[in-house]
């Protein structure tokens, strides 16, 4: 039983790819608002709550997350 719970926990912790067009637009807009080049987000993975890694059409990858109430965009 413990192993099962542990496995479930690990599975939840692993980032997973997602493909919500609205989320992609949101991420693209945030990246653009920070003045970083991207153009279009072609894919992204969810790292956690309000924590994403977005891959742009131009090949750039950014981690977009919320820290202390601020949206932070970090180039990967």
């Amino acid at each position, binding site marked *: 039983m413990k192993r099962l719970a542990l496995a479930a926990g690990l599975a939840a912790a692993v980032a997973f790819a997602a493909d919500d067009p*609205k*989320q992609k*637009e*949101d*991420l693209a*807009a*945030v990246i653009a*608002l*920070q003045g970083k080049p991207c153009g279009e987000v072609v894919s992204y993975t969810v790292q956690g*709550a*309000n924590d994403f890694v977005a891959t742009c059409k131009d090949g750039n990858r950014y981690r*977009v997350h*919320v820290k202390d*109430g*601020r*949206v932070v965009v970090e180039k990967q």
Partner: protein
Amino acid sequence: MSVIRPWLGLAVLAAACAGPTVPPTVPEKVVTAPATAPAPEPKAAPEPKTKATPKRAPEPAKPAPAKPAPPKVAASAPALDLKTLEQRLKDTSAIGVLTKLSLKNQVDDLVGKFKTYHAGARPPTLAELRPSFDLLLMKVLSLLQDKDAALAREINASRDAIWGVLTDKQKLAEFS
């Protein structure tokens, strides 16, 4: 999902959109010329103070003070209702949650700069703040214009009103 309240900052912007609060125009007191003395009634009981002589011409005694020209109505900036605008910003699906939060961050930053300005620090000067304001407004508009064009138009039309609030220390304090 952590509790995100991206609307606080936008609310400031929205509040600014409400435009300067123009004090309601007090209805002008109608100054009427004193009533002309009633037609003399023969043998009427003398009124204590109105000893109007019957021959008195309609009294120009106290010409009504010339009314000052009515205050010019300020060029009516489209007054956006604060609450309505705030609600519309909350409800719009044109902007995603992260984008709203990011905008809020930028609005907060800009408002902080205006507070610094109002505190007397130089820089920033208003001339330096204006481009930042214009750029932020442009960002908001560009995010809204395709999917919520009506809201974008109203915000754009309120540009001067928003600037007016930001540059007025008291008004800005009211909304912060």
